[in-house]
């Protein structure tokens, strides 16, 4: 495969969002990014569920979903069962880009990537995600861990590249408070200190990045900046328009912090681009966006303590928007165009193709050929995962070091044998919590990957440990995805009866009722939510679906449009609107809405099916075939795309052979689905838990 570029610079800006960036670019406050966008391609990138950064950045680096790469949370149990530690590179089960490049004779630099600690001995250099942090939670000095840097000769230099937040002066922090300076005399108000810490850690990351970029010995440099996400979690409530609970003084003091960090990132970007040089290709992306408008989640009470601020039921992840940013420019990339339908999983295969390396079939993403200037012939291989002496993966670690979850299992066996006591100590409860969250995240990863059976097995095991309504709801969602709505019904009915104030449960119960053709009951479940949750897009979209099922097309259109008005990123609303429009004979508008949905989230098979139907209705058979084929590829067990393909090939293309092939496929898949449903209905036993491997 020909190499399309001398080198690739991959920059991660966690949580960066076009909704903040576009106004800044228009104001001339982010000139570097503006030039990059004009010079290359740009668009949204769809995140993955669960929207947790360690999982997402490792999906970006490996091209694989979380169940394959194994990084499933922020922390993992310590192998000895005492407490938790940040998730480590030894836990990652799949090779990252830098491992693949290392074994392929190429050199990489890695700076601050999530779960990159301890540093892997790749061909190149690594500053791990532990490198930027000099101060702990109680402002105690943390010495730089020698394992945070590879090769070891860089350790002394690394210490000099770290920026100590305590050395930053008020003058250096003033750009973050242009309207009014904060009160630095208060010991209780740590907000200015948070800005200093974020600034220092960002600068440390940038120091390491520019040091590596300035050396002319790299083929790939991956730099991750966490700062925008942290700044947003701490200060987005003050961002104009400040949220209702924010005082006028706080809005004045802290209202520009988020934008100031964006401007700082633009300046850093400029320096990195200069160092990378004109023969490089740059990819800049975020893993998700961040709500900055009316969709910011409500705050329970004004407090500096996140637990108090958000209350026990609020989750910081609810601030994450599903669309992140994606920009690519330089060698091999088109100029001044929009990029559509990008997923986080597409980055690794695309970078391999840019560097002239084969793309493995076991990556879950695809090469973004639509952004490349010239067509390429992609060379494929099965996988890079076989051990290679030069891949730089950690070898020779103890079994418990490489899999702390297995180590925890061993500990639990010792407890079951009666030799250790797991209940006595808080550190062990922390480890148990980490295990619980890991299982919960893994179930979400499987569900998002259209693998509801695997998710179901994990959720059943979790339910056996704790009878929580949230787990029952998730089990019900799995049943719905498997076409087994009747099994979801009793679970949801119980949750709704016990917890009538949980609108989410009623929403999903409504869907289950619709799936069972109990439309009147579904309507009476969902219709009140139209008013109770008038400003929540997901409820409006759900109502739209009920109207669709009842054939009330105009009402459905109104509900979907209301959802879109509230949240233009709602994939479900755009797709649902597309169906409502198609049924009213408005095919062009329908196609537009389905394409909008596909642009927002490419990896959603039902959108491509719906688009295919709209295209077939408007006699665009070739495009319809492409849409259905894509859906079939994404959901290989789904019969519906094959039914449509059979019909199109038979009626319109007169290709009897292809029509027969798809008809047979449809019949086979439909039969298998029916058998599974009948087997499950006859024996609704709890499925066994899959292995942790």
């Amino acid at each position: 495969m020909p190499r399309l570029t001398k080198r690739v610079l991959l920059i991660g800006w966690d949580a960066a969002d076009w909704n903040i960036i576009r106004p800044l670019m228009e104001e001339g406050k982010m000139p570097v990014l503006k030039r990059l966008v004009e010079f290359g391609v740009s668009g949204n990138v769809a995140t993955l569920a669960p929207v947790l950064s360690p999982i997402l950045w490792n999906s970006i680096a490996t091209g694989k979903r979380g169940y394959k790469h194994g990084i499933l949370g922020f922390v993992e149990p310590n192998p000895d069962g005492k407490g938790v530690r940040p998730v480590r590179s030894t836990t990652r089960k799949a090779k990252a880009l830098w491992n693949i490049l290392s074994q392929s004779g190429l050199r990489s630099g890695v700076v601050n990537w999530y779960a990159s600690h301890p540093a892997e001995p790749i061909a190149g250099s690594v500053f791990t995600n532990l490198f930027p942090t000099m101060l702990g939670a109680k402002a105690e000095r943390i010495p730089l861990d020698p394992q945070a840097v590879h090769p070891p000769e860089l350790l002394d230099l690394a210490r000099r590249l770290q920026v100590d937040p305590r050395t930053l002066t008020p003058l250096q922090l003033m750009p973050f408070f242009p309207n009014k300076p904060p009160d630095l005399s208060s010991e209780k108000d740590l907000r200015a200190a948070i800005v200093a810490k974020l600034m220092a850690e960002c600068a440390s990351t940038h120091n390491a990045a520019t040091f590596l970029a300035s050396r002319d010995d790299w083929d790939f440099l991956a730099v991750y900046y966490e700062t925008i996400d942290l700044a947003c979690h701490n200060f987005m409530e003050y961002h104009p328009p400040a949220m209702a609970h924010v005082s006028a003084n706080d809005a004045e003091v802290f209202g520009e912090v988020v934008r100031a960090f964006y401007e700082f990132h633009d300046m850093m970007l400029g320096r990195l681009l200069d160092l990378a040089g004109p023969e490089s290709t740059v990819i800049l992306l975020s893993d998700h966006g961040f709500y900055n408008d009316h969709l910011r989640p409500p705050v329970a009470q004004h407090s500096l303590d996140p637990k108090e601020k958000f209350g026990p039921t609020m989750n910081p992840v609810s601030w994450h928007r599903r669309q992140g940013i994606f920009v690519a420019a330089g060698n091999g990339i088109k100029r001044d165009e929009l990029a559509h339908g990008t997923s986080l999983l597409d980055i690794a295969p695309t970078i391999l193709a840019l560097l002239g390396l084969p793309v493995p079939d076991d990556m879950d993403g695809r090469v973004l050929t639509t952004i490349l200037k010239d067509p390429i012939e992609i060379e494929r291989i099965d996988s890079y995962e076989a051990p290679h002496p030069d891949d730089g993966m950690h070898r020779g670690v103890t079994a418990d070091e490489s899999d702390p979850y297995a180590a925890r299992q061993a500990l639990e066996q010792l407890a079951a044998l009666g030799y250790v006591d797991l209940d006595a100590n808080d550190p062990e409860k922390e480890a148990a919590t980490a295990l619980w969250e890991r299982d919960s995240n893994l179930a979400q990863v499987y569900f998002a990957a259209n693998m509801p059976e695997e998710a179901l097995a994990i959720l059943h095991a979790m339910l056996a440990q704790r009878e929580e309504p949230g787990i029952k709801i998730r089990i019900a969602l799995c049943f719905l995805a498997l076409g087994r709505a009747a099994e979801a019904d009793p679970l949801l009915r119980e949750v709704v009866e016990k917890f009538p104030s949980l609108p989410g449960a009623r929403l999903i119960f409504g869907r289950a009722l619709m799936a069972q053709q109990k439309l009147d009951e579904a309507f009476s479940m969902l219709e009140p939510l139209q008013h109770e949750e008038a400003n929540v897009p997901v409820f409006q979209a759900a109502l739209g679906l009920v109207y669709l099922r009842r054939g009330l097309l105009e009402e459905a259109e109104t509900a979907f449009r209301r959802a879109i008005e509230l949240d233009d990123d709602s994939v479900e609303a755009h797709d649902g609107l597309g169906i409502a429009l198609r049924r009213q004979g408005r095919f062009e508008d329908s196609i537009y809405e389905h394409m909008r949905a596909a642009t927002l989230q490419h990896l959603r098979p039902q959108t491509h099916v719906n688009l295919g139907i709209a295209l077939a209705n408007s006699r665009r058979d070739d495009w319809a075939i492409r849409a259905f084929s894509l859906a079939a590829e994404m959901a290989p067990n789904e019969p519906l795309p094959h039914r449509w393909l059979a019909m199109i090939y038979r009626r319109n293309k007169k290709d009897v052979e292809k029509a027969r092939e798809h008809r047979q496929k449809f019949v086979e898949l439909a039969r298998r689905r029916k058998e599974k449903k009948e087997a499950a209905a006859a024996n609704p036993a709890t499925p066994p838990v899959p292995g942790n491997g």
Partner: protein
Amino acid sequence: MSEAARNFITVVSGLPRSGTSLMMQMLAAGGIPPLTDQQRTADESNPRGYFEFEAVKQLRKDRSWLAEAQGKAVKIIHLLLPELPNDGAMEFRVILMERAIGEVLASQRRMLARGGKASAAIPEEQLGKIYLGQLQQAERWLASLPNGRVLKVEHRALLADPTPLALQLNDFLGGDLDPGAMAAAVDPSLYRERQS
């Protein structure tokens, strides 16, 4: 040497089901009283008893009972060895039982099954590697113990011919034990999950 004169604590350690209870029986027969509270009584997994002391499980938080262990033998699982004080104030003589990992895993599996409990949800091969890693860590810690001595005893060898090991134990523990009684305490018929 009387219990009062024996100014060290005899620790019997190893993986669960590596022969630690057997060793405790031997030492009791030979003249070192066990520190035990009899909370876990004999059963099919250990027909002659467990010789355990419940407070051992709280070793991380509470070491006050160690004073009571002076001159006696106490069973402490390998994982908890690093919780022993290593300031040199107390002397420990550690008997570390060794048994083929396959036999250990099989024995643990059977014991759990008898108790109606589930085994760890990971492959036994992986579990075995984890245990061996834990043992290595424990041995490294023992090597650093300022006032400690370690004697490894192989389970299969003990059951095949206890007499030489009984003599070795006697030497290790001060020389005033009854090696004949210790050897006689070993009942080869209790050697289950034997693997060739």
